[in-house]
C-alpha cells in the first residue's frame, strides 16, 4: 500500500513538473519530494521499504540545533572533537539547503552568513560554499536551484566520514538524546560513516557521488583525495631517502649508546618457602626453564619455571594394592611424584611439604606450582646439582660421597659415581665436552666423564677441602678454590697444576671464568671479590674485602660471596652475597687520570658499580618486607637475565 502511495505522489509531482517545463531526473524527483515538504528519510533497514516522516524546517529550530551541536562538539574531548569536526561541514551544507528549500532564502541566508566562516579554512569547503551560495542566490525558485550541478551532486552523493567507533557512538547518543530531528535525518541520509578505529582521521569529509568517480568530480571532491595521496607520497619519500643530517644524527645516537653506562641484566628471584628440610643448594638450567633444589634430607626437587607446553598427565592410582599387578611391581619414585602442571608456572614457587606427603599417598593429582619431580637416591644432604647442556640429565653430589646422574624425562637415577671418600662440596660441567669436575672435603678435585663410574683424573695439591670448581670456557682448564685460601688452575689433559693464585684472606666460596677466557673472578668468605688476569696470574682489581680496593664505591660485600656471574661480553660482573645483596659491576680498564696507574704502568682496571639490588633479607631477616630469604644461588641464563634462588625458612 505504501508503494502505491509513493507512485501516486510521484506521478502527481512529475505531472506538475512537466507542466512547468522543468527537468524530471531522478534527483529532481527526490528534490521535488522534498519540495512538497515530505522528506525522504533515514537509512531504511531493508532496501525495499520506505518510511516517511515530516519534520518542520523552521529556521529557528534548525539554527538552534546547529548551534547546540557546535557547542557540544567544542566541549568534546580531543580525539572525538577532531573527528567530529569532519561531520560539521556536511551537516552545515545540508542544513542550509534544507533552509533554502523550506523556509525561504532570507532565513537561509542568515543562517549561512552566521556560520560559514569557520569553513573557509578548507579550500575544498570554500569552493562548495561559494558554489552553493551562487546557486541559491541566483536562482529564483528552489526548483531551479535544485537543478544546479553542485547541488545535485551534493544531494545525490553522501559525504564519507571516518570516525572511530567510540566517537560514532558518542555522536549518535548525542543526536538521539537531545532534540535533533533534522540533524539526525541529514546525518542518516547524506553522511556515510566509515568506522575506523585506527585513529587516522581523514583531513576532511569526502563526498562520494553515485557515479563513483571520485576524481572526475574534481571541483567538489577537490583536493582531498589528492592531498591525501600527496601527503602519503611525501611521507614515503622522507622514509626512503634519508638526508645526510638524519644519517649523521643516527650515527651520533649509536655512538652515544656505546659510550653510556651499561645496563645491568634483569634479575628474577625465586624463593623457596617452607623448606623445613633445609635447602642446601639450587641450580637453574641454562635456559631458565628448570629449577633444581637439593635438600638436606637427601631429596632433589625439580620445578618447571615456564608455562607447560604439554601436560604431564598421570592417573591417580592407589598405592595400597598395586593395580598393575602383584608384588613383583613396585611403583617407582617418578610415578608417584610426577604431577600434572597447573596452568601457567608461577614466578614465585612455593614448596609445600604437605603436597609431597599427599603425593606419596597418591592423594592429589594437581599441585599449585610447576613441581615436576622429587628425586630420591642420595643418602645424605645434596650439596650441589648441575644440569647437562641439553637439560636432559641432572648431576648431583652429596654428603654421601657419591655423584648421581638422573634422567629428567624418566625421573630416575641412571648412574652412580664413586671415587671420593668424603663429602663432595661442588660440581661443574664442562662447557664443550662431557667432562664433569667435582671438589670434595678430601682436598682433591676429580674429573669424570659420564661414561665411567670412576674418576679419570685426580687433581691433588690443595691442603684443605676444595670448595668450588669450574671449567674454563675452552674446556682445557679447571679452576678450584679451596678453604686453604688459594686458587689453583689445572690442566684437564694431565691433571697438573698450571697456576696457583694467592691473594685471598678467607676461604674461597665461588669462582667464575669470564666468557672471553681472559679473566677469573673469585669470591670469598669475607666478601672480597677479586678479578685475576690469567695470562699474568695476578690480581687486576678487587671489590671490597678486608681492605678497600681501587674502587671508590663505599658499598661492598660484607657477607660471604656466594655467586659470581659474568655477562656474555665479559664487561659486567655480578656478585651476590649471602646477605641478599646482588651487585653488578662494570669491569673495564679506566682512563689513566681517573684511577691512576697500576704497578705495570698500564691503566688500572676498575669494577665500577652499575646497579645493586637487595633480594633477600639474610639469615635472620627472612620475614622482611622484600620477602626474600637467604640467597643461595645466582646464575645467568642464555636469555641474558639473572636468576637467583633464595630460601625462606620456616618461622622458628
Amino acid at each position, binding site marked *: 500500500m505504501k508503494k502505491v502511495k509513493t507512485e501516486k505522489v510521484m506521478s502527481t509531482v512529475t505531472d506538475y513538473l512537466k507542466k512547468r517545463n522543468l527537468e524530471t531526473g531522478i534527483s529532481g524527483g527526490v528534490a521535488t519530494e522534498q519540495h512538497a515538504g515530505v522528506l525522504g528519510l533515514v537509512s531504511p533497514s531493508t532496501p525495499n521499504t520506505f518510511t516517511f516522516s515530516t519534520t518542520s524546517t523552521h529556521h529557528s529550530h534548525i539554527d538552534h540545533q546547529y548551534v547546540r551541536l557546535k557547542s557540544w562538539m567544542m566541549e568534546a574531548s580531543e580525539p572525538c572533537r577532531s573527528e567530529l569536526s569532519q561531520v560539521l561541514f556536511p551537516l552545515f551544507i545540508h542544513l542550509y539547503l534544507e533552509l533554502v528549500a523550506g523556509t525561504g532564502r532570507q532565513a537561509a541566508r542568515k543562517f549561512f552568513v552566521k556560520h560559514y566562516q569557520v569553513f573557509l579554512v578548507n579550500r575544498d569547503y570554500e569552493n562548495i560554499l561559494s558554489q552553493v551560495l551562487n546557486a541559491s542566490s541566483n536562482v529564483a525558485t528552489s526548483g531551479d536551484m535544485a537543478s544546479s550541478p553542485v547541488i545535485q551532486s551534493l544531494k545525490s552523493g553522501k559525504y564519507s566520514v571516518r570516525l572511530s567507533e567510540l566517537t560514532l557512538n558518542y555522536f549518535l547518543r548525542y543526536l538521539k538524546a537531545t532534540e535533533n530531528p533534522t540533524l539526525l535525518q541529514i546525518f542518516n541520509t547524506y553522511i556515510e560513516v566509515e568506522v575506523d578505529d585506527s585513529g587516522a582521521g581523514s583531513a576532511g569529509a569526502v563526498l562520494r557521488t553515485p557515479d563513483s568517480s571520485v576524481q572526475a568530480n574534481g571541483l567538489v571532491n577537490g583536493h582531498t583525495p589528492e592531498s591525501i595521496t600527496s601527503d602519503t607520497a611525501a611521507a614515503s619519500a622522507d622514509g626512503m631517502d634519508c638526508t645526510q643530517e638524519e644519517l649523521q644524527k643516527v650515527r651520533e645516537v649509536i655512538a652515544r649508546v656505546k659510550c653510556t653506562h651499561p645496563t645491568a641484566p634483569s634479575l628474577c628471584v625465586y624463593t623457596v618457602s617452607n623448606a623445613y628440610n633445609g635447602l642446601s643448594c639450587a641450580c637453574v638450567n641454562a635456559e631458565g626453564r628448570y629449577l633444581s633444589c637439593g635438600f638436606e*634430607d*637427601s*631429596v632433589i626437587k625439580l620445578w618447571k619455571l615456564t608455562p607447560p607446553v604439554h601436560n604431564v598427565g598421570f592417573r591417580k592410582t592407589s*598405592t*595400597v594394592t*598395586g593395580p598393575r599387578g602383584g*608384588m613383583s611391581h*613396585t*611403583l*617407582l*619414585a617418578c*610415578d*608417584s*611424584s610426577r604431577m600434572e602442571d597447573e596452568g601457567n608456572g608461577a614466578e614465585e614457587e612455593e614448596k609445600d611439604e604437605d603436597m609431597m*606427603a599427599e603425593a*606419596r599417598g597418591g592423594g592429589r593429582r594437581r599441585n599449585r606450582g610447576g613441581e615436576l619431580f622429587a628425586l*630420591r*637416591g*642420595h*643418602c645424605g644432604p645434596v650439596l650441589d646439582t648441575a644440569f647437562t647442556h641439553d637439560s636432559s640429565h641432572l648431576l648431583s653430589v652429596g654428603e*654421601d660421597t657419591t655423584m648421581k646422574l638422573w634422567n629428567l624425562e624418566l625421573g630416575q637415577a641412571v648412574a652412580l659415581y664413586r671415587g671420593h671418600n668424603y663429602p663432595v662440596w661442588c660440581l661443574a660441567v664442562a662447557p664443550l665436552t662431557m667432562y664433569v669436575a667435582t671438589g670434595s672435603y678430601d682436598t682433591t678435585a676429580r674429573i669424570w666423564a659420564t661414561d665411567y663410574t670412576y674418576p679419570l683424573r685426580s687433581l691433588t695439591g690443595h691442603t684443605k677441602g676444595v670448595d668450588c670448581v669450574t671449567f674454563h670456557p675452552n674446556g682445557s682448564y679447571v679452576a678450584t678454590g679451596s678453604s686453604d685460601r688459594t686458587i689453583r688452575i689445572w690442566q684437564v689433559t694431565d691433571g697438573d697444576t698450571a697456576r696457583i693464585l694467592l691473594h685471598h684472606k678467607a676461604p674461597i666460596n665461588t669462582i667464575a671464568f669470564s666468557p672471553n677466557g681472559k679473566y677469573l673472578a673469585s669470591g670469598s668468605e669475607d666478601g672480597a671479590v677479586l678479578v685475576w688476569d690469567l695470562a699474568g696470574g695476578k690480581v687486576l682489581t678487587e671489590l671490597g674485602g678486608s681492605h678497600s680496593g681501587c674502587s671508590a664505591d663505599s658499598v661492598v660485600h660484607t657477607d660471604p660471596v656466594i655467586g659470581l656471574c659474568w655477562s656474555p661480553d665479559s664487561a659486567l660482573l655480578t656478585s651476590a652475597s649471602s646477605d641478599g645483596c646482588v651487585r653488578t659491576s662494570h669491569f673495564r680498564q679506566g682512563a689513566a687520570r681517573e684511577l691512576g696507574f697500576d704497578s705495570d704502568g698500564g691503566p688500572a682496571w676498575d669494577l665500577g658499580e652499575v646497579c645493586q639490588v637487595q633480594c633477600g633479607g639474610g639469615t635472620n631477616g627472612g620475614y622482611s618486607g622484600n620477602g626474600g630469604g637467604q640467597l643461595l644461588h645466582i646464575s645467568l641464563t642464555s636469555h641474558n637475565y639473572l636468576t637467583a634462588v633464595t630460601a625462606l625458612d620456616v618461622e622458628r
Partner: protein
Amino acid sequence: MDPNQQQQQGGQQLPRTSGLPLSDFLMQLEDYVPTIPDAVTAYYLNTSGFEAADVRLVRLISLAAQKFISDIANDALQHCKMRGSQQSSSKTKGKDKRYTLTMDDLTPVLAEYGITVKKPHYYI
C-alpha cells in the same frame, strides 16, 4: 619366628631366600600394624634415598627395626636376670619383680650387636 629370622638374615646379606615365604609373610603383615608409625619410617627411608611407595615395604622395615630394638631389650633383660639370680632373690617376691635397664646390662648386649658405647665415668 622362622620367617622373621629368615627375613633378618636376608636383610644382612644378599637375599638368598626364595620369594614365596617372603610374599606369604608380607600378606600376613597386612593385619599387623607395627609400633613405629609409617610416616616416621617413610621419612627415614626417604632420607636414605629410598622412595617408599608401597606401604607394606615400609611396614616391613619398621617391623625389622622394632624387632631389632626388642631383641636388644630382651638380651639386656636376660643379662639383668642373670645378675639378679646371682644375688639373693629371697627378699623380693617373684611376681612384682621390677627390672631396671641400666648401662651395665646394655653395654655388653650392644657390643654383641656390633655397637660400641662408651659412657664417661663422670661429666665435666
